[in-house]
């Protein structure tokens, strides 16, 4: 994490903003992935 922080350009606020955006995007990606994979466990039970 420290090396990623060090490689980010710009002042502290800009680095923080980039990190927050990246974390939010990663979390959103995980939710999308989990939702898709969740259909393998339980697709809702509908037929057709």
């Amino acid at each position: 994490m420290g090396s990623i922080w060090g490689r980010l350009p710009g002042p502290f606020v800009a680095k923080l903003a980039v990190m927050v955006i990246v974390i939010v995007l990663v979390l959103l990606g995980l939710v999308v992935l989990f939702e898709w994979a969740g259909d393998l466990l339980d697709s809702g039970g509908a037929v057709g």
Partner: protein
Amino acid sequence: MAVRRVARVLGWTLIGASLLIFAFLGYQLFVTDLIAKGSQQQASRELDHWWTEVRTTLPSPQIVTTSIPTLPQIVLYPEEPVDEGKSFARILIPSLEVDEVVFEGVGRKTLKKGPGHMPSTPLPGQPGNAVISGHRTTYGRPFYDLNELAPGDLIQIETAIGIHSYQVRESLLVKPTDVWVTEERAGSWLTLTTCHPRYSAKQRLIIVAELVEGPNFEYAQVVLAAA
């Protein structure tokens, strides 16, 4: 040196993969339950409010003439279709302690809130085959114990026109594409569908129940006898 580097990368990859799997299981088994619980609580309040309103403007009962000498006329209590995604009924299965608000529709978004009624089938309590689907192991797992239902067990559905009591007649396992289970039937029936086995969407567990009491019970019996 290269071996140590490979081992380090492999180690971190395995730790990452494990965390991902735990996060996935936690999301599916706990977070989805919280999402469904919130939706159910909100829908329950909205449903009580909506019933109070809609019960003052229900469609007029239809008087139907029959050829049965002892029952020359029967009454059908119709019910207006509801919009997709809207809560309109409550399902109670006393033997499984199931008490859930039912929504209109069987889309992914709707079923995350609770059991859903298949729009192409009649509403519960009406003549025909009303189909309700629900999650088995995620999103509040409303139909988790559905396999424990036995012939004779009671299922109650409350809609705007009253309480419809069904008795389980049979249960069966089918493929997810076996849409024949949703086909029209003479009389008044309820078909519940959910994933089977637990934690797999490979098959569907189907519960077939027949109306035994409710506003349209007499009507359904006459339709069944005439078929």
